[in-house]
């Protein structure tokens, strides 16, 4: 989908800038930070299915042949569903430091 900007010539209430909540980096809400043990991650993708923010992607990570779980910390709110649902228990949590 093409990138759009908020138009000024339309009556109020119409938002043309689609997907614009992405400017709100919800990662600042986080108290606990999920950390993935890439050595043990099998890239099964269960965490990806259950992330409410959609900030988990299974993709190629440097140094590994298989795709692995990567977390976008810009948006991760630290709910830790990924840690709870990981069948191999390779995600752990640490207290966020800012």
């Amino acid at each position, binding site marked *: 989908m093409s990138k759009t900007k908020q138009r000024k010539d339309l009556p109020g209430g119409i938002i043309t800038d689609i997907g614009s909540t992405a400017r709100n*980096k919800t990662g600042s809400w986080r108290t606990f930070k999920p950390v993935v043990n890439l050595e043990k991650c099998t890239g099964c993708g269960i965490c990806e299915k259950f992330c409410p923010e*959609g900030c988990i992607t299974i993709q190629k990570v440097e140094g590994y042949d298989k795709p692995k779980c990567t977390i976008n910390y810009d948006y991760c709110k630290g*709910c830790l569903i990924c840690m709870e649902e990981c069948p191999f228990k390779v995600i752990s949590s640490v207290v966020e430091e800012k």
Partner: protein
Amino acid sequence: MGIGLKQFAPGHRTCAGCGSAIVFRHVLEALGDDVIICQATGCMEVTTTPYPETSFKVPWIHVVFENAASVASGVKRSLKAQGNNHTRVVAMGGDGGMIDIGFGAVSGALERGEDIIIMVYDTEAYSNTGLQRSGGTPFGASTTTSPAGKKIPGKQEWKKNIAMIAVMHGAKYVATANPAFWADLQAKIKKAYKLEGGPRLIHIYSPCPVGWHVEPSKTIKVAKLAVETGLWMLYEVEEGKLKINYKPKEFKPVEDYFKLQGRFKHLLGRKDIMEKIESHVREWWETMEKVEKEGINLLKMI
């Protein structure tokens, strides 16, 4: 790329661990781009579209609590008049917007046989305003307007069954889904998308960790337990024929489900109430399995 990111951007203001956000990701991914969404007021409207921002990347219109299904009907008819027969129109709302306040409009759209998809994400209470009791609230749950006290242990009425109400309107396709069974959820949305010429209603269980007093990390665990205890049945009704999609081999005790949630904590140790709920669930399953086994056409009941 994360689930549904092409249709639904991150940065929305849902609470950490929001079950509805997981539901929306899967629903929007399954619907794809050729869709117009008419959404009633509710959690997922307030959190996703703080003006001038929106999480949605597909055409989306916000309407009041009462009339999401009516607006969707109008949009669909307008598209048809313009010769567009491919774009699907979806009315979305929570249990407040679709089961209670907007129920008249939902019932009307179902009765007129509008060519729309109605999607209900059921958080089992008015989560957006601080968890007041709704028609979707289950028996025994404590909410701010059905508080558990010494005499009355939470809500004393059973949950309103919107899926079967839709079937009794003669809806083309009705299904229930649960985010813990995401593949089943996506398949049902895709099926509703493909079918044409009548209303299709999907009723989706959406855990609300803040309102239900559940650990945010346990959202999916609770959703899975709802199915495994038999309290939430995954089924679909196509042209009046019922099909139960998942039958647990053995039902887990409802206590397992209740002890994870603060809204049921007053029921722990109340064997009488738990037995009442379990026997209600058992009888419900027996009836539904009988209907499925005998191939009863539910549309003949109308």
